[in-house]
């Protein structure tokens, strides 16, 4: 059973439990009437919500998160956790890799422990996210716990404060007033204070001057901004709000952006290097080449019809044209395309070979064989070629089965089922490598021998270079949609506003009262005591009282 504290002040005001300074007259309620220690002026000495007697369960949670000490610990743990994540690379830095072996191979035992502890994805781990959520809770509760009582206290301040309230401030002056000046001293003090842009409230023999109170709300505005920011980041990952994909855009092709009805064409990709005269003399000597610009001339199309029907050609309408560069993405209705990477090695787009009867020398065709969307069947004279399979990056796996290592046409191969004269009814299989180098490397004839022996009867051949079409280069773009970004920026904007309010302005107050010809002055500021003392000293000088800046400093500890 807690002791019932007597919280009634001598001025008659009934304060709540936890109050440090009487809400009405400002008398310190720390019982020790004789103490000369400096006053605790935080939140103007009012009781916070978390200082209730007999807290229940919810109060206890509230009290936990409302503590600045807890907040500081949360920040410290987050700080230490963030440090751990910078020891080795994070998994999120890589697109395709196997983390279970990477850390062990690169860093040995330590790397494996790092991976096993889950530190290879520190910032996505449950404990790190939990810390951030707890910081969020602390931001809300800390602010609410303090801002409402503080607002109440600041909006109903009494002008005449208890004498002790004045003498135990950090800036204090006490001294007699010249005789005969008592009556209008307070009245005369109003003008010089107003000149220093104070709002002055005067009574007969007491005065309160105050300025830049708004800076008191700065910290709470910072916290609101941080909450907006954290919420935006939290909701960013929700489905529909977020898209993050990387695509190759081969030059001259329209590529569909999945999840949207948009197509993007890479019209032309260019890399520009710095010329010799753009470099300094010293740098020229190093012989290094430095790229100046990567640019993808992009056209964005919107699909208007036949969008989901693979058998029909989709109808596209141009909606945006932009030269995408690093630092200059394409943006269209919340979708952005960023220059990410490029590949200047030419790639096969299509070949137009002919089918040759090796016995008679007759040629059938040309037929156009596209790498990406090849036709399924070709009718060439008496022969029919049915495409059974394609391997754009041909290779053999450990079992000797043909596989494609990637989607890029590095070593394309096409497996046909051929039907026609001199060929068994059910057809015979035939593999075709468009690139001469692959024909030799993978031994096309030997494979065909095993498949059905057609290599002696038929041959697929490209007659000249004009029948080969290359993609000159490809641009790798990062396509993003981030619907939460405006809220991220809004949150950060609010944070900055709060920071500027609370750090570049200070809430300053001067109280004074005159008792029997003795002037007592106390002053308080949230920051910059040096400036406060200087201001008080110059005010006193204007009133004809010489007081050195240093002498105003209250020695009490």
């Amino acid at each position: 059973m807690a002791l019932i504290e007597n919280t009634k002040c001598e001025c008659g005001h009934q304060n709540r439990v936890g109050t440090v300074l009487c809400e009405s007259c400002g008398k310190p309620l720390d019982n020790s009437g004789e103490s000369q220690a400096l006053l605790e002026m935080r939140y103007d000495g009012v009781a916070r919500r978390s200082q209730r007697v007999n807290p229940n369960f919810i109060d206890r949670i509230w009290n936990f998160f409302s503590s600045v000490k807890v907040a500081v610990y949360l920040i410290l743990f987050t700080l230490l956790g963030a440090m751990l994540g910078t020891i080795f690379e994070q998994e999120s830095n890589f697109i395709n890799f196997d983390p279970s072996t990477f850390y062990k191979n690169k860093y040995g035992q330590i790397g494996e422990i790092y991976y096993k502890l889950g530190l290879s994805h520190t910032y996505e781990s449950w404990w790190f996210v939990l810390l951030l959520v707890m910081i969020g809770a602390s931001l809300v509760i800390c602010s609410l716990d303090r801002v409402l009582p503080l607002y109440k206290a600041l909006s109903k301040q009494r002008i005449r404060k208890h004498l002790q309230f004045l003498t135990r401030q950090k800036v204090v002056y006490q001294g007699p007033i010249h005789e005969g000046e008592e009556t209008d001293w307070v009245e005369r003090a109003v003008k010089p204070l107003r000149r220093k842009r104070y709002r002055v409230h005067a009574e007969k023999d007491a005065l309160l001057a105050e300025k830049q109170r708004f800076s008191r709300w700065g910290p709470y505005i910072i916290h609101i901004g941080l909450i907006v920011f954290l919420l935006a980041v939290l909701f960013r990952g929700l489905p529909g709000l977020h898209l993050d994909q990387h695509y190759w855009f081969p030059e001259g092709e329209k590529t569909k952006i999945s999840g949207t009805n948009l197509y993007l064409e890479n019209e032309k990709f260019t890399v520009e290097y710095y010329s010799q005269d753009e470099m300094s003399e010293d740098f020229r000597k190093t012989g290094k080449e430095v790229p100046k610009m990567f640019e993808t001339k992009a056209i964005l199309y919107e699909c208007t019809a036949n969008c989901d029907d693979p058998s029909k050609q989709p109808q596209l309408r141009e909606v945006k044209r932009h030269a995408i560069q690093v630092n200059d993405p394409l943006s269209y209705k919340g979708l952005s395309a960023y220059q990410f990477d490029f590949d200047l090695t030419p790639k096969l787009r299509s070949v137009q070979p002919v089918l040759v009867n090796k016995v008679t020398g007759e040629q059938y065709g040309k037929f156009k064989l596209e790498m990406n969307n090849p036709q399924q069947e070709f009718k060439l004279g008496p022969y029919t070629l049915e495409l059974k399979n394609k391997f754009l990056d041909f290779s053999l796996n450990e079992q000797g089965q043909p596989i494609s290592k990637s989607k890029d046409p590095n070593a394309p191969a096409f497996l046909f089922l051929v039907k026609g004269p001199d060929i068994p009814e059910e057809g015979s299989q035939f593999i075709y490598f468009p690139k001469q180098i692959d024909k030799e490397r993978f031994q096309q004839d030997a494979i065909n021998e095993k498949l059905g022996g057609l290599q002696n009867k038929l041959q697929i051949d490209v007659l000249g270079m004009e029948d080969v079409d290359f993609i000159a280069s490809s641009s790798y773009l990062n396509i993003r949609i981030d619907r939460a970004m405006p809220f991220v920026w809004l949150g950060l904007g609010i944070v900055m506003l709060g920071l500027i309010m609370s750090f570049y302005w200070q809430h300053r107050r001067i109280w004074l009262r005159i008792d029997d010809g003795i002037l007592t002055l106390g002053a308080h500021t949230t920051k910059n005591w040096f400036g406060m003392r200087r201001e008080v000293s110059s005010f006193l000088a204007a009133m004809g009282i010489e007081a050195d800046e240093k002498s105003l400093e209250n020695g009490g500890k």
Partner: protein
Amino acid sequence: MDFLEISRYGFMIAFFLYCASFIFYVVAVTGKTWKNRDPEQHERKWGRISFVTSSLGLLSHLVYCAARWAYSGHIPVSNMYEFMTFLSMMVMIAFTVIFFIYRKILLGMFALPIAIIIMAYAAVFPREVQPLIPSLRSIWLYIHVTLAATSEAFFAVGFIAALIYLLRTIEFNSTDKSARRQKWWIEFTLFSIIIVVGFIVSVFAFRAAGYEAVYTQNKTTIDSQVQQDSTIDKQGVYHMPPIIAPYESKPVSVPAFLGMDRAWFEAPSWMSGASAARKLNTVIWALITGIVLYLILRLILRRPLGQVLAPAVRGIDPNDADEISYRAIAIGFPIFTLGALVFAMIWAQQAWGRFWGWDPKEVWALITWLYYSVYLHLRLSRGFQGRKASWLAVLGFLVVMFTLVGVNLIIAGLHSYAGTD
């Protein structure tokens, strides 16, 4: 004479003026107790001389910056040399701002050595003007880097004032436990600064001597195209005598230094990177040189460095030093938030498509921000002003310097353009 040459002169002149004004500040602060002079008049006279000299140095530093900008066509903050030079300039500007508010000569005596050390450290890095890679070609380079450097310079001034506070308040004659511990840590702080000086001295000494040792490192790599093992010889060049040789390496040419003609140790296997062993070697030389410098100083002075400095700071009120430290950090914090985080996020969003990617440099900027927000929260509570706050400010500067330098040298990442080599 072209702009590049002007900028070189600007750099040199600024450096020497800073050195001179440091000496003047020392005279201004310590000379008050000399015989046959009026202390106040002495301080006024020498204070003016030193402030004018350091301001002229700053002017020359600005000339360096403007001339290099004019020559290269972009603001000179794009590599480690340019950034560190810029940072030391911002330290001088932050010092000047704080000096105009508080008029404490003593600050100069501590701010100038910090600016000089940062400037000398900059000169360690390659000095040529490099063209900007595409990702740096943005207006945000100007805004983000300059604001970040400005805020860090204010944190530096906060560190300097905190150091003054500690030197002023630690009781060097007392032998109780807390005083002993503080004496030890203040000495350690000063020692750490001397290690940095040791690094700079050793780099320049061996560079002046033209020292070079070469190692080859056999590396077996599997070539995926041909599916064959091929061995590539990697050469590592040391510009300091090797104490630590690269992992599994053979010396090609190792000139003898003081009779030392081969490395004493080999780097452990996990330091298999070509430059990791060289960096470790450099760190060891920095430590050796720093320790030697420290011991020489101790031999000459015959007292701990903290105790030597303590009388010089007697003229300042510790409360003022504490407030200057707090004020500098309070000025720097919003600038840091804006420059090093908000504008960095805007730029990252524009260049890389994401405003935050947990890149080491980003994380360390966040750590710095969290650290100073802890500082600001703790300052609200009673009992944290003064001594504890000052220690936090001193440690905070270490966090700042790690974010600026350590991350690039040790961790790298997307901001690695600013590293060595």
